């Protein structure tokens, strides 16, 4: 049973994190002013919107390496109409630190003309995350190849990228710029923070403030020059907070490469109508669809696990042997039977 006193302290802290007591402190400490919020003017857009997403499901672990099922791809819309969903990668990934070079290098070389990935010891635990991210970049690259000037590519996440893959991102930005395609990263969750005494959520508080300052409007706010903890920021672009739809309460962190700096209002204007679906109000609908089409469900993960076990059995491994190697002892404690 938790300590009552401790519980109330935690509750107070959470309240302090979440609630925004008046705008003055927020505006003062972040340097944000009312005029910094730019109302988005909706504009008609008949080009294609590509939305890139990826998914990663742990299939099994045998202590020295993991097997993950990874999927990446994109959904394509024209106005409100879904055109197609393209899965660019859908396979198992054997996350063994010693195999990392052979897992990554062919893709980096083939798609981005880059040499071997440089992983530090501390990065090895994140192998499957890197791999999923790399596959998402391959998907962006494929979308770029199929896009036309003026199209928009949305990426689910942030461009505040793991250092080993920054060069990949730089290549993508360069290609997108050449092709005159807008590339934006939309993050559903963000660690952007403000505050001196405690760490406060910047995107949520900006959204609350804007609801008072510009009720019912879609807007965007550039973080340039604002007192916000925005990470390392070495990825070569600008970060914004955006409310895509005036009827929604939600705002998102949006990362934009440098080359789009002057066109932000115009690009976001093309996305307002696309972000007011009944299914997912306030979020660019293509990202919603990409998430649903590309996600790996629990059943898919279980099926992949069973296929893997069947494959091992065919190779002559006894079930007992497989279980001993792969079963996580937590499964025993939780009385789960995954194998």
């Amino acid at each position, binding site marked *: 049973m938790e300590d009552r006193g401790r519980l109330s302290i935690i509750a107070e802290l959470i309240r302090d994190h979440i609630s925004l007591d008046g705008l003055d402190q927020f505006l003062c400490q972040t340097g944000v002013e009312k005029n910094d919020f730019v109302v988005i003017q909706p504009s008609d857009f008949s080009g294609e919107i590509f939305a890139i997403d990826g998914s990663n499901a742990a299939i099994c672990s045998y202590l020295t390496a993991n097997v993950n099922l990874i999927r990446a791809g994109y959904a394509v819309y024209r106005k409100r109409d*879904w055109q*197609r969903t*393209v899965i660019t*990668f859908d396979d198992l990934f054997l996350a063994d630190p010693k195999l990392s070079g052979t897992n990554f290098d062919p893709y980096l070389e083939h798609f981005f003309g880059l040499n071997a990935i440089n992983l530090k010891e501390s990065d090895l635990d994140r192998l499957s995350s890197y791999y999923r991210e790399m596959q998402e970049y391959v998907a962006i690259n494929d979308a770029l190849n199929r896009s036309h000037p003026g199209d928009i590519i949305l990426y689910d996440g942030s461009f505040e990228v793991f250092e080993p893959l920054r060069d990949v991102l730089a290549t993508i930005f360069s290609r997108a710029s050449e092709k005159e395609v807008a590339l934006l990263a939309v993050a559903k969750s963000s660690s952007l923070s403000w505050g001196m005494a405690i760490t406060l959520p910047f995107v949520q508080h900006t959204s609350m403030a804007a609801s008072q300052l510009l009720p019912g409007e879609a807007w965007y706010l550039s973080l340039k020059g604002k007192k916000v903890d925005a990470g390392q920021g070495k990825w070569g672009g600008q970060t914004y907070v955006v409310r895509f739809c005036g009827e929604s309460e939600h705002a998102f962190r949006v990362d934009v490469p440098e080359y789009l700096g002057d066109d932000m209002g115009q690009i976001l204007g093309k996305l307002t109508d696309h972000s007011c679906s009944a299914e997912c109000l306030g979020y660019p609908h293509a990202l919603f669809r990409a998430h649903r089409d590309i996600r790996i469900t629990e059943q898919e993960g279980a099926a992949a696990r069973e296929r893997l076990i069947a494959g091992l059995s065919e190779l002559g491994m006894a079930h007992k042997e497989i279980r001993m190697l792969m079963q996580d002892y937590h499964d025993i404690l939780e009385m789960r039977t995954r194998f």
Partner: protein
Amino acid sequence: MQTIETQAQPDNATSLLKPKVIEGKDTTYRIVSRNVSEYQFIVPFNLPDEERVEVGQIFSINDQGLTYLARVLNIEHSSNYDGHWDTTMKGTQFFDSDQIFNRVVAEPLGCINKNLEFKKSRTLPTKFSPVSRAEREEFKFLSQVMGDIEVGYLRNGSRLVEEIPVALHSDAIDHHMGVFATTGMGKSNFMKVFAASCMRLAAQGDSKFGLLIVDPHGEYLKGKRNSQVKGLVHLTRYREGLACYSTDRSNATDPGVEELTISESEIFPEDIALLYEWSAPQRDALDAISRIFDPNSWLDEIKTPDGMARMMQEGFKDSTVNVLVRRIKNELGRNSYIKKRSSLANILANLQKGKVVLVDIPRMSDRSELFLLSVISRYILDEYKKDEKEGEESRKNCLITIEEAQRVLGAASNTSRFESIAREGRKFGVGLCAITQQPKLIEKQLLSQFNTLVVMGLGDRNDRQQLEESAKQDLTSMDTEIQTLEKGEAVVSTLNIPFPVPARIHRYEDYLHRLNLEDPPERLIKKGGFKPFLE
């Protein structure tokens, strides 16, 4: 053997990207589930009015040379999304109409093979088999199993399939028939259409049974005055298939309509018995009448002082006998058609010829109507029994219509005569056509004897349940459809037709017009049709 590295990494550059493209292939109108007894498919949620799916509609599923037929039982809102997301819907509209849809639940009816043979299905269509609204071609096999008494057209949902008439089988009619509908749903119209088709068969010499209709409302003979509603006499083209008897003098003066009379000698004590509630001594006295008096003159004799004295000599109290006599006098006084002569022999003869016999008794009380129906029915059943003994084969079977049948076939009714027709009439070629708006009041065991059911919209759940539990074909799955039937629409369940058929009953006046325009045989000959003799 491959090294670990070669197993884990892609073979070559071309295998690095093998995109799988999912495009807008139509997932709607394809079988998606579920099992042998229930098919499911999805349709767009925003179909225009004319394409909307309706309960009762029949769809066809084409699968490698077989055409499965399935009737829509239910339509549900559905989507590929989990949870209750749609109850908190915001925004301007749905974007992904391929993810949000209506799920159609359908009951398999059977399948048709390449030879147009219909069979019950013991398997299910292949997943994703295409589904479409069944059209004339798919229903063609029904034409082959329909009977000779046309009553309407096949209906698919609200749409008519005019090329496929719905027709009952004469052969099944002596197996009893029920017409069930709440007021205003078209029972009388149905009966007139049914009678008109029977008149047509009779006039053409093709009739297999005589139809007796006793009409207490006076609407079958000439329709309704000062309105467009027509009667059976207006079917001039096949008028010879109809014999009319009326207690209304003005009607009886019409050519072709005889005055209805019943002879006193044709009335039995049990006809009086069904008209009243009797005490035990009174019932004993009624039962004794046949023993005490001459069956041909008991009505006259019992009213005389001598007759009453004979009853009392048998041990019945004078008060009991007085009640009996008073009630008999009342009935004789009330029913002016009771005379020395009788129409019953004629009625019987016409029925045995296969004609439609209409007994028109307008403005007659409920009790008198029952009394008359009892006398006629008993007479008919007795005569058919005699014919059966004598091996009379030339006579046609007979169907006796009873309006408000719950009065005489109900669990609490004391009218064993009609029950006995229901139970044993078929042996002698006598069937019942029970018309009621309250099937729940009809004894379930009797209802189960009915092999032809015409159901025309029943709002009361108990009525539907009673039918569903008694019907020869499974009607349970059609509960919603029966509940939502509109005026003139029916579900027809009968022998020889493999599943309960949705029908739109002809509007009598339209049907009348059509029949009156039919070519007589001599004109058919001129047109190159049937030519019976060589010149």
